[in-house]
C-alpha cells in the first residue's frame, strides 16, 4: 500500500512538475497566469491522438508535431490576447479564463465528449520488486517526464536564452535597460510555457485519455504547485510537484480517496498564509 502510493505520488509529481514548469516560466517572466494552461495540455493530447490514431503517423513524430503546433498556438495567443494587457495582470487572467472556457467548448464541438486516447507506447504492466504491479505506460511517462524536466533545466541554466530568461524574471526593468527585447522574449517564453503544457499532455494522454474538460484539474494542480514552490522558481516547481503528488496519493491511500484533491488546495492556502512567497520564491507580492 505504502509502496504503490509512493510510486503513484512520484509519477503524478513528475507530471505536475512538468505542467507547472510552463506556468512558472510565464509567471516569472511576464507576471501572467495562463488560465488556459490545462486546455493547451488537452489540445496537445487531441493533436497527438489525431496524428497518431487517425492519420496513422508513428507515435514520436505525432507527439513532436503536437507540441510544435501548440507552441505556435501559444505564440498566437500571446500576440492576440496577452500582449495588449501588459501591466494589468487581472485583465490577462480574465482573458485566459474566458479562453479556457472557449477552448473546452470548442473541443466538445470538434472531438465530442468522449475520451480520446493516443496509442500506447508500451503495453502491459511490470512487477516492481515483487511489491506491486504497475502499468508500463505509466513507467514510461515517469521516465520521459523526468528527462524533459532535466532538459528544461539545462535550457535555463546553460544557454543564452536561459540567461536572458533568468535576468528578466529577476528584474525586468534592468533587463530592458540592458537591451533585452522583452516583447520578443515574452512571446517566446509564453510559447515555451504552452509547449511545456503540451509536452505534459502528449506524455500523459495515453494514460489518462483527454476529454474536453479534463484540463481543468491539470491547470488547478499546476497553479497549486507554482504557488507552493514559489512563483517563477523552477526548482520550486519540481519540489512542489513531487510534494503534491506524494501528499495527494498518500492522503488518498491513508485518509480518504475522495478528498485526494483537497489536500493540495489546503496546502495552497496554508502556504499563502504562512509563507506567501512559496518554498523557493522571491519575496515579491
Amino acid at each position, binding site marked *: 500500500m505504502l509502496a504503490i502510493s509512493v510510486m503513484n505520488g512520484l509519477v503524478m509529481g513528475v507530471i505536475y512538475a512538468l505542467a507547472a514548469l510552463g506556468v512558472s516560466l510565464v509567471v516569472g517572466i511576464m507576471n501572467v*497566469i495562463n488560465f488556459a494552461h490545462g486546455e493547451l495540455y488537452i489540445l496537445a493530447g487531441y493533436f497527438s491522438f489525431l496524428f497518431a490514431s487517425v492519420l496513422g503517423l508513428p507515435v514520436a513524430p505525432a507527439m513532436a508535431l503536437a507540441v510544435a503546433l501548440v507552441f505556435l498556438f501559444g505564440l498566437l495567443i500571446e500576440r492576440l490576447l496577452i500582449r495588449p494587457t501588459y501591466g494589468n495582470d487581472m485583465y490577462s487572467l480574465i482573458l485566459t479564463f*474566458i479562453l479556457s*472556457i472557449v477552448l473546452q467548448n470548442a473541443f466538445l464541438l470538434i472531438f465530442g465528449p468522449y475520451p480520446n486516447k493516443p496509442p500506447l507506447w508500451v503495453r502491459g504492466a511490470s512487477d516492481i520488486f515483487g511489491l506491486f504491479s504497475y502499468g508500463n505506460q505509466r513507467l514510461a511517462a515517469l521516465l520521459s517526464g523526468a528527462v524533459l524536466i532535466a532538459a528544461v533545466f539545462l535550457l535555463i541554466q546553460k544557454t543564452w536564452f536561459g540567461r536572458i530568461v533568468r535576468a528578466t524574471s529577476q528584474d525586468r526593468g534592468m533587463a530592458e535597460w540592458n537591451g533585452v527585447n522583452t516583447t520578443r522574449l515574452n512571446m517566446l517564453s509564453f510559447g515555451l510555457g504552452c509547449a511545456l503544457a503540451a509536452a505534459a499532455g502528449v506524455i500523459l494522454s495515453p494514460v489518462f485519455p483527454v476529454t474536453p474538460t479534463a484540463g481543468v484539474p491539470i491547470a488547478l494542480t499546476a497553479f497549486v504547485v507554482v504557488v507552493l514552490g514559489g512563483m517563477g522558481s523552477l526548482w520550486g516547481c519540481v519540489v512542489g510537484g513531487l510534494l503534491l503528488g506524494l501528499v495527494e496519493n498518500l492522503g488518498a491511500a491513508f485518509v480518504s480517496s475522495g478528498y485526494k*484533491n483537497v489536500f493540495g*488546495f489546503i496546502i495552497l492556502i496554508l502556504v499563502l498564509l504562512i509563507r506567501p512567497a512559496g518554498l523557493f520564491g522571491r519575496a515579491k507580492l
Partner: protein
Amino acid sequence: MISSSKWIGPAVLAGMCLLPLPLGIYPQHVLIVSLFYVMMAASWNLLAGYTGQVSFGHAAMAGIGAYTSGILAAKAGVNPWVGVAAGTLLAALLGLGLGALCLKMGGIYLSLTTLAFSQILHIIIVNEYEVTRGTMGLQVPGLTAEYSKLTYYYILLAATVLVLFILYRMIHSNLGLSFRAVQNDETAARAVGVRVLHLRVLAFTVASAMAGFAGGLYGHYLLLITPEIPSLDLQFYVLAMTVIGGMGSFVGPIVGAFAINILAEKIRDYGEYHVLVFGLIALVVARFAPEGLTGVWRSLGRRRTP
C-alpha cells in the same frame, strides 16, 4: 447624472413588474434565472469592477448560501426564509475571512486563493454526499407553500431591487467615491488617504453576502441544489456577463445578465453551442471593448450628441 432621468428607475421597475404577466411559464422561468444572475453579476462587479479583486469564489459563495439554507430546510425543517438569512450570514462571514486572508496578498494570489476555496467547497459537497447528496442533488422545499412562477418572479425581483439598491447607495456614497478612486488608480487613491485594504475586505464581505443571498433564493426556486451552483461554470457565466455588460459600471452587469440569458435561450434552439458563443463574445468584448456593451453604447451616444 440623476437629474435628467429621474423617471427611468421607477419606469424600468414598473415595466419589470408588468413584464411577466403576459408571458408563458417558460419565459417567466428565463426571467427568474436572469434575475439571479443580475444579483450575482452586480455583486461580483463590486469586487472585480470597483475594487480590482478578480475573485473566482463568487459562485462558491452562492453555493454556501444555497447549501446552508437547503440543508437546514431539508434536514432540520428550518423555515426556508430563516435558512436564506443564515446562508447570507455565513457567506458574509466567509467573505470576511477570505477577504482578510487575502489582505496580505494582491492580484493573482487573491484569484488563486478564491479558486482554491471554490474547489475545496466543491470537493466537500461531492464527498459529504450523506449530508449534501453530492452530485445527486439535494431536494429542498420551496419558499412558499404553493409553487408559482409568478410568486417566485416577484420574490426574486424584490431581492434584486434590494441588492441593486444597496449597491447603488454604496457606489454613490462617500464609500463609492473611494471605490471609484481605487478602480482608477490604486496608488493615487492610497496617497489621498483611501483605506484600500478596508475597502477590499468590506467589498468582499458585502459581495459575498449578496451572492449567498442570491444563491439561497435560487436554490429554493430550483427546488434542487447541486454542485453546479458553486461551480467554475457558473463563475464563468457571472464573469462573462459582467465583462460583456461592462465591468466597473453600475448598469453593465444588469444588461449583461439579461442579454446573455435571453441570448442563451435563443441559441439553445440551434443546439448546445451557447457556452461557446458567449465565450467568443466575451473574449472579443474583453479584448476590444474592455468597457463592455455599456461602454460601447456610451461612446456611440457621445459621438452622435457631442
